[in-house]
């Protein structure tokens, strides 16, 4: 039975989530050097085309099609066969399935775009497109089915992920680690300094991401109801707390509060609360945001200790945020907040925390191994990295024959 309010809300939420990808493009684009800004923006922006195409003809069916052994959806819905105005009660009984499909499409689009921050400033465009397309089919779609698909094996074990802590942030975060390891460090790493070329652009992007996140988390209720309200409130409070904590920690640690810190902390809080947003109350959301702001700050410092070059901190913010948020859900989840959810450790249910930890291990392991092998294979067959001269010249000219700033 289609409800107009729910349908309108999810359509708007889908548009909000779409906007996150251009927002991410600006967030990342501001952090790279001026010679790489267009190439970096393009890597996120083009995902709207590549992944939407994949989603319509393959991805939606693999993710949400009829279950095959708990592992993958069948091809019955490929090309959107039978996906129209009628609701699909397995997922959202009050909106047309086409609305659910296009809403989920936006999640699939932003996930590979998130990975691009790890290999920013050094990957060729062609191999990047191939990687993103194959990654979406081999990593995103199966994991999406395991956790959100009717019959998915992790869903059947009681794993919860409200809006993509596992499906989006952990898969992209672990793929980012694989990419940083396979591609190696940028030319001049440790000798040259890769300073952000336009932090106002990064803050604009962070603002657009935050705005879109209300659709990402709020819309994941798939109805305009109390659960959507819970998620919406939790999203804002965690973003706020993440920003406050990150800025506070860096002020103490480095003696200065920074704008990039404010943006990073907000994104860390938003990413971390994502899996928990529809299942926890406002106070838990604040705690989750505070933890995210503090721990992701340390997570970003880790790349310096281990000397891998995750250019824009996808591992430290999205990967760690996905892990942290999924475990925090195991701690703070409460049926008093959302009867359709679960009780976590603090509500006396330790087993649920174990279930969430298991999901983290499985998803991180699967995404890392698949991403690593995929990148290695494409590297051997085609070559992932720019030639040294092209890397010095920058992505914009070498890959796109454009310059962002023609004075």
């Amino acid at each position, binding site marked *: 039975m289609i409800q107009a309010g729910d349908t309108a809300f999810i359509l708007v939420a889908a548009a909000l989530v779409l906007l996150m990808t251009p927002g991410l493009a600006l967030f990342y684009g501001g952090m790279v050097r001026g010679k790489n800004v267009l190439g970096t923006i393009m890597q996120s922006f083009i995902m709207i085309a590549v992944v939407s195409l994949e989603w319509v003809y393959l991805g939606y069916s693999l993710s949400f099609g009829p279950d095959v052994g708990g592992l993958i959806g069948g091809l019955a819905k490929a090309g959107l066969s039978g996906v129209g105005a009628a609701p699909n009660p397995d997922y959202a009984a009050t909106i047309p399935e086409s609305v659910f499909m296009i809403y989920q499409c936006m999640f699939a689009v932003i996930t590979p775009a998130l990975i691009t921050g790890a290999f920013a400033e050094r990957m060729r465009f062609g191999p990047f497109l191939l990687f993103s397309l194959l990654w979406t089919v081999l990593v995103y779609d199966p994991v999406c089915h395991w956790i959100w698909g009717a019959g998915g094996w992790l869903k059947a074990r009681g794993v919860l992920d409200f809006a993509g802590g596992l499906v989006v942030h952990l898969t992209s975060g672990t793929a980012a680690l694989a990419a940083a390891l396979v591609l190696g460090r940028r030319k001049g790493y440790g000798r040259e*300094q890769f*300073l*952000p070329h336009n932090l106002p652009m990064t803050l604009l992007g962070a603002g657009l991401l935050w705005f879109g996140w209300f659709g990402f988390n709020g819309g994941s209720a798939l109805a305009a109801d109390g659960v959507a309200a819970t998620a919406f409130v939790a999203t804002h409070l965690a973003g706020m707390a993440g920003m406050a904590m990150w800025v506070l920690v*860096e002020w103490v*640690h*480095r003696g*200065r509060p*920074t704008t*990039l*810190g404010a943006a*990073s902390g907000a994104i860390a809080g938003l990413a971390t609360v994502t899996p928990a947003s529809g299942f926890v109350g406002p106070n838990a959301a604040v705690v989750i945001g505070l933890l995210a702001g503090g721990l992701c*700050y340390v997570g*970003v*410092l880790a790349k*310096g200790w281990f000397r891998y070059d995750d250019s824009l*901190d996808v591992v430290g913010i999205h990967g760690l945020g996905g892990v942290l948020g999924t475990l925090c859900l195991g701690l703070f989840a409460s049926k008093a907040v959302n009867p359709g959810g679960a009780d976590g450790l603090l509500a006396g249910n330790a087993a649920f925390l174990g279930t969430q930890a298991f999901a983290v291990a499985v998803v991180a392991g699967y995404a890392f191994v698949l991403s690593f092998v995929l990148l290695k294979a494409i590297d051997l067959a085609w070559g992932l990295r720019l030639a040294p001269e092209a890397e010095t010249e920058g992505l914009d000219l070498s890959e796109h024959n454009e310059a962002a700033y023609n004075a």
Partner: protein
Amino acid sequence: MKKIEAIIKPFKLDDVKEALNEIGIKGMTISEVKGYGRQKGHKEIYRGAEYVVDFIPKVKLEIIVEAAQAEKVVETIREAANTGKIGDGKIFVLPVEEVVRVRTGERGRDAI
């Protein structure tokens, strides 16, 4: 004729310009430059990591004067630009072989 090149702290430009005006210097060319001497760079912080940025923004003045005026100009710039702190800058005096005014073709001291 001499060319005086002075590298100074940007915030001192107004003081130097005023002081040179007072001793009758009418023209100068200035450019925004970056560099370092003993001061070395400044610190920037991005996501908890500290970076030392070697090249510090400075202002370069270029002034052409008659040789007899050069010492007075140098001293005027030195006094006006001085803060007593590291990074106050340098002044160079170079010989100038010829000056030509484009509009009239005047040469030498008439062209200054």
